[in-house]
């Protein structure tokens, strides 16, 4: 079996459809800021939103495919690197953590399938994008761990907390119960990332800096132009209390909030430019 695979090589059955990201980027509708719609921005994901249950179902499917990719990413980290002390190697204990994460993510997939049934969503009902696994393809183990376990698993904390609150508000005992359990696992995974980043770069500040830079890139990308953030109308809210448990300090959380604001501003600016271009070309 070869080392270091690409997202195109992930195994999926026929129910799954990979979204072509070039199609998404080329979608001219991206030029319309949501506030230009007749009904404004969709806002925070709470049960009193008119489209609450369908939005929650779509998000649940996104979580499900995210869990599959998290499982695959953790599994590949067990396999892609050798135990050793070189820059391309990892400690034995790091592999053990990744195997543990593999089991956790497998359970999260199982939970997600059951939750999808509960919410009336079919496997493969929505398209899948492989953004998440892309971060798990980094050939530098420290960068991979930081991008996956601090940025993406951090996003998982935000998403699960949002869904947990959604379940709590709606009085949905199954959703709230499951999200709370998964949240506990994700805090553990982020803590693994924080601990390994510190341990592996204790004598290499340059590498630490590079890893944190990579984390920022991933964090910004996964703010999805303002989907996740701290403004009232960000559908997914930054979960400060749980991130703190996972080893983030106030400054780091402020930085993520700022990256989310930046990502949103950039998307809005891109939309403005695209609108101008559309006007000029008569679209």
């Amino acid at each position, binding site marked *: 079996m070869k080392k270091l695979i690409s997202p195109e090589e992930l195994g999926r059955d026929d129910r799954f459809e990979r979204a072509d990201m070039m199609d998404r980027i080329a979608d001219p509708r991206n030029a319309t800021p949501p506030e230009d719609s007749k009904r404004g921005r969709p806002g925070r994901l709470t049960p009193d939103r*008119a489209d609450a249950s369908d939005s929650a179902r779509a998000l649940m499917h996104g979580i499900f495919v995210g869990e599959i990719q998290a499982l695959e990413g953790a599994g590949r980290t067990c396999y892609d690197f050798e135990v050793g002390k070189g820059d391309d190697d990892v400690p034995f204990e790091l592999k053990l953590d990744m195997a543990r994460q593999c089991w956790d993510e497998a359970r999260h997939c199982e939970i997600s399938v059951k939750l999808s049934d509960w919410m009336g969503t079919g496997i493969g009902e929505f398209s899948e994008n492989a953004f998440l696994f892309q971060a798990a393809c980094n050939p530098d183990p420290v960068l991979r761990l930081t991008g996956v376990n601090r940025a993406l698993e951090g996003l998982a904390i935000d998403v699960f907390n949002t869904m947990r609150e959604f379940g709590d508000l709606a009085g949905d005992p199954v959703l709230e119960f499951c999200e709370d359990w998964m949240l506990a696992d994700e805090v553990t995974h982020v803590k693994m990332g924080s601990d390994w980043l510190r341990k592996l770069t204790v004598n290499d500040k340059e590498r630490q800096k590079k890893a944190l830079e990579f984390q920022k890139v991933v964090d910004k990308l996964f703010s999805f132009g303002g989907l996740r953030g701290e403004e009232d109308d960000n559908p997914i809210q930054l979960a400060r209390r749980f991130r703190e448990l996972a080893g983030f300090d106030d400054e780091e959380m402020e930085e993520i909030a700022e990256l989310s604001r930046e990502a949103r501003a950039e998307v809005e600016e891109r939309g403005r430019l695209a609108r101008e271009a559309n006007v000029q070309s008569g679209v």
Partner: protein
Amino acid sequence: MTTTVTPSTFTMVEYDAGVITGIADELADKVGLTGVDIEIEIDETVPLGRNRLESVDPVHIWVESGAFEDAKKFRQFSEVNAADVLGRHLMRAADRRSDAFGNPADDGDLSLEHRAAWDIYTVGRLTRLGYPANRQRWLYDFRNRHGFTDVTDRIFDELWNGTDLTWDRVSALSDEAAASNSGKLNRKPA
């Protein structure tokens, strides 16, 4: 009676106004919506999927393009999704135009619970007209609005299987389910 789709040609999504008209006409016929013009306004500039029934004479339905989109392929049309959204609005338009049904408040003034209950009654009837729907999806929607209780599930069945219900009955069933809900939902109009 005519059905108009706006825009008549799409530049941002790969939709065909003729196909949408065909789906709407077949649905209107099946739900008994006759003698009225139908206007379907699609905001193709927005990828979200929000939608609403804006008037019943003429019947005016507004949707964002995501409402008719194939969830697996960007900008591609989904007949199933279009029939689901149009079917519910056309069925509710037929209800509103029927004297026997009664007089619900305007959509903008309906509570989320009443609206959800009406949707269940609507989708249940559409499935019997040959438009399949995922029952669990609608049960989840109804539970989200009315609470996760046995009372809610019993009332869901009554609405889903209901025929010839009036607005008074639909809203009373919704109120009964909501009364059993101890959840923390902050209720606002849809």
